[in-house]
Every structure is written in structure tokens, then in C-alpha cells.
């Protein structure tokens, strides 16, 4: 497939869901900007960030939508599940209640997505070892019972954050590859979208090309 000039081959939309305060926004800024903000503010509605990673020499651009965690916001934020190829459901390993909500988030995702979504369960705040309320094997067991990927992360000390996103993006990529017929059909609109949202800033494009290994 021809490489698109903008510096990436595939664009995958991913959503972040989970209860308030589990660390969705910080997980996102850790991944996209390598930053952790102690003063991060409550997310209202949705926020958005992107990052590009390499999988098998292909540049994959993740378009990640961070959603407000409060239950009553679901009516609004669920519109963003449409068209998503993947989702991370976050809980806080130091707050049992946020783990108990995972089942509802899962149901919500399945009811409102139109794709065969890759879903990953993420136990965040793994740095809070002394306050742990959800054991790793509990998370693992839930994930395997529901056919989800599983990982524990810490946006604060950065452990496993890149791994989580790389794993889900790779899985999406492989899923698309594994179904070439459906994949081709599904890739087509992606590419269109990619072309649509290209910017024509020569300086920027130039620098992007330079950093590109191809």
C-alpha cells in the first residue's frame, strides 16, 4: 500500500473510558506528550490527542478520544464510540469501586460501537502499591473471562503506558490484516480520511519526511 505523505499509513480511532479520577487524561498525556500533570483538570465532554507509532514498518496514527468519566455524561460521550477501532477501559487499582464499574463500561461500549472493537482493560495507578485494592489476578481474570486484553499501568511513573497503546494498536493492525477482504473495505475510508485531514504546511511536511525512516 502506498505510503501517505503525511507520515503515517493507518489512522485508528481509540476511546478512553472509565470512572472519574482513574487517570484517563494523564494516561493520554503520558503517551502523547510524555507528561504527567498533578494539576490535571476534570475532563468536560471529550478531549482529543494523537500519536504515531511504528508497527512492522508501518506508521500507525492513533487518534485518541478521552471522555468525561461521570456517569451522567455517558449520554453525550457515547457518540464518540462510533467508528472507534479500539477502547481502553481504565480503573484505578487503589479504588475497588472503579473496578466494579468496568462491567458497565464494557456493556456501554458494546451497545454503542459499530465496529468489532479491540478492548483492553487497564488497571492504572500501579505505583500505588500500598493502597492496592484490586489484585492483578482479579483484573486478569475479568479480562480473560470477557475476552479483553489486560495490562497494569502507571501514568505517574510511566510504566507500561507505551506498552498499553502499542499493544492495542498492534492488535487492531493485525485484526485488520487478518481479514483482508473486510480489511480492504475498512481501510478505504481510512485513507480517504487521512487525505482529507492532511495539512499543507510545507515546513511541517518537510520535517516529517525527514524524520521518516522510509
Amino acid at each position: 500500500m502506498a505510503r501517505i505523505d503525511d507520515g503515517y499509513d493507518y489512522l485508528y480511532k481509540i476511546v478512553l473510558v472509565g470512572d472519574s479520577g482513574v487517570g484517563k487524561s494523564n494516561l493520554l498525556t503520558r503517551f502523547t506528550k510524555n507528561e504527567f500533570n498533578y494539576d490535571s483538570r476534570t475532563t468536560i465532554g471529550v478531549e482529543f490527542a494523537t500519536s504515531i507509532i511504528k508497527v512492522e514498518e508501518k506508521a500507525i496514527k492513533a487518534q485518541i478520544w478521552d471522555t468525561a468519566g461521570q456517569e451522567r455524561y455517558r449520554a453525550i460521550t457515547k457518540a464518540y464510540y462510533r467508528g472507534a477501532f479500539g477502547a481502553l477501559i481504565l480503573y484505578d487499582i487503589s479504588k475497588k469501586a472503579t473496578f466494579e464499574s468496568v462491567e458497565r463500561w464494557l456493556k456501554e461500549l458494546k451497545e454503542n460501537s459499530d465496529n468489532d472493537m479491540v478492548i483492553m482493560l487497564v488497571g492504572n495507578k500501579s505505583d500505588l502499591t500500598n493502597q492496592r485494592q484490586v489484585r492483578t489476578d482479579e483484573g486478569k481474570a475479568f479480562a480473560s473471562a470477557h475476552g479483553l486484553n489486560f495490562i497494569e499501568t502507571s501514568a505517574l511513573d510511566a510504566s507500561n503506558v507505551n506498552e498499553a497503546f502499542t499493544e492495542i494498536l498492534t492488535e487492531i493492525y493485525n485484526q485488520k490484516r487478518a481479514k483482508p477482504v473486510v480489511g480492504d473495505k475498512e481501510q478505504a475510508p481510512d485513507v480517504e480520511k487521512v487525505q482529507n485531514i492532511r495539512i499543507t504546511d510545507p515546513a511541517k511536511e518537510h520535517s516529517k519526511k525527514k524524520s521518516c525512516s522510509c
Partner: protein
Amino acid sequence: MDAECDGSRADFVAVLRLQLMGGVMGRDDLKRGERKSTSFWSSLWTGKVDVKSIEQMPFVDRQECLKEIWLSEVLSDWEKSWKSERARELYYAGVPVMLRGKVWGMSIGNDLQIDPSMYSELVQLARDRRAQCDEDDIYAEKNRLLAKTVEHLHIDVPRTMPHLEVLQDEQPVKISENVGKVLEAFLMLRPDIGYSQGMLFLSSMLLLYLDPEAAFVAFTNLLDKSRLLDFYQNSADKVELYMNAFAQLVSEKLPKLHAHFVKLGVEPSMFLLNWLMSAYCRVLPLDLASRVWDLFVSEGDTTLFSVALAILESLQEELLTLDFDSCLRTLSQLRKRTMDQDALIRGIKKIRLSEKSIDDALGKCSRK
């Protein structure tokens, strides 16, 4: 001070210093500087000051000058003058920091006739009820629900306006200490509305300029019958209708930008929910947000839509050159920009949507 507010930091320190001079809610009635400045300013102008000339002044002079004008022309006869054309001009020029609490409180009014002394009773009641969660009576379920909501809102308190302090009775008070209490009291009074993320930004803003009782009265009155309630109650249909109505307004006022957004797939909800549901406190530098609030408290929530259009208009040329990612990044990180405050306020004044123009846009969208 929030590191993200750096742009307005210097001004904001000045704001807090001025509050110290004036006292929150004008409690000291601005004793300091008054002797000198009253005669000083009145000797300069015998007639009405042209508001445009104030824009050129340095921050502190401008505050002093506006204070004199507000005191002599509006506050001296509030009922008669606050809705006048002159007062409108003055709201657009900006309410001076030392009078802001007073003017906001009076502008919002108290149609609900809430007795400010209810505040501490309601805060206490909320605490008592939460303590009775485990009791086995007909209220237990309600109390547990309340406890859960309060627990949730306290997760958000430190994530609203971290580190902000104001001076009350000469003592520095962390805004966050009262932000949660105002909401707890509100929950007791309006359990039908409940707590929604975003509300804390409003109560924080009010607490910056008003004492807790007055902030509670203002908050409750401000939300009553407000269009913001449709958002806070997260009624998906209504919110979608507002988003479409806003797109309609953009297409009428800024057709080029609208076409650009449509081409890229940028939808109003991607930035507007954040702007409206925090009444701009989350997205604009605090001093600019305060000026937006001068208009919000005096002209009502239609202003919030005018502000959105004015922001888009001011950024239009830049946005037209940007792709999807950069557009959204720009629209969600307004705090990091240096914005010409007076220019934006002029833009809002020029647009100034009426209640009817919003209703019309809503009507057009609901028929579609």
C-alpha cells in the same frame, strides 16, 4: 497558581492584590485610595468618561478609573441604572476587580429569595444526612446516593481550580475548601438537578469574588432556568440540538469556517461542551474568563454562545489553515495563548446574539 495559567499570572497576582485592597465583596468599601482618587478622577473628567479611552490605560489605572465610574454611575442608583445603555457599555468595559463580587451578586439577583443564612444550615444538613447512611430508615437509600454524589464531587474539587486562594477577613482561604461546600448545599436544595462535572468551575469562579454564602445564592440563582441545565442534566437530545444550532449559527456568521469544519469533520461538541459547561473557566485565562462572566451575569446565558462565536471569529484566519488535529488542539488550549482581551470583548459585543436568534437556530435544527 495553576501552571497552565501562566499567561495571565502577572495580571492575576495584581487581581488578588487589588482584592486585598478592596476586600472581598467590597466589604471595606474600598477605603484605600478613595480619598485621593475620587477627586483625582473627577478633576480629570467632568462629563461621562468615554469608555474607549479606558482601554489604553495600564491595568491598575484602568481598574481605579472603572471603579470610580461604577460607583458613581451605577452602584449609586442600582435599580435605575444597571439595565441602562451606559451600564451595558460599562459591563463590556469590565467590572473592576474590587467591585466584581458586589456587581455580580446584584446582577444575578435573588429571584429565588434564598436566605444566605441557609447556606451553613444546608452544608450541615448534607453532612448529617451522609452520616446517617447506615441507618435503617426510609431515607437510607437517598442518603447513600447523596454520599456517593458528594464523594464524587470531592474527587473533582482538587481538579477544578487548583491552588487558587482568595483573601477573606484578611485570611488566605483556599478556594477549594469552599467549592465543595457550595455544591453540597446546592445538592440539598436542588436534588432534582444533582451534581454534574463542570458545575465546580462555576462555583469556583463565584468564590473567587464572593464570600461562600453569597456565592451559594448566586450559583443557585444563576443555574435556575438556565440553558446550562440542559447540559448539566446531560440530556443527549437537547445537547445535540444545541450543538446543531451552534453549527447553524457558525454557518450563518462564519460561513468559510463552517465549510472548513465540515470538510475536516470538526464538530461543535468536540470543543463547545468544554467551553460552555465550564462557562469558559476551564478554557480561558482567569482574567479573561472573569470579563466574559461580567457579560454572562448581566446578559444571561445567550452570552456564552456569543463568546463561542467571537472566539471562533478571532481565530478564523488561523483555523482555516489548520488540519483536524491542529484545529482541535487550538480550540482546547486557549489558555496557552496570548489573547487580546479587549478585541475579544469587542467581538462578543458585535455578535451579541439575542435570545431569539438562539431559539430560531434551535427551531431550524429541530425541524430538520
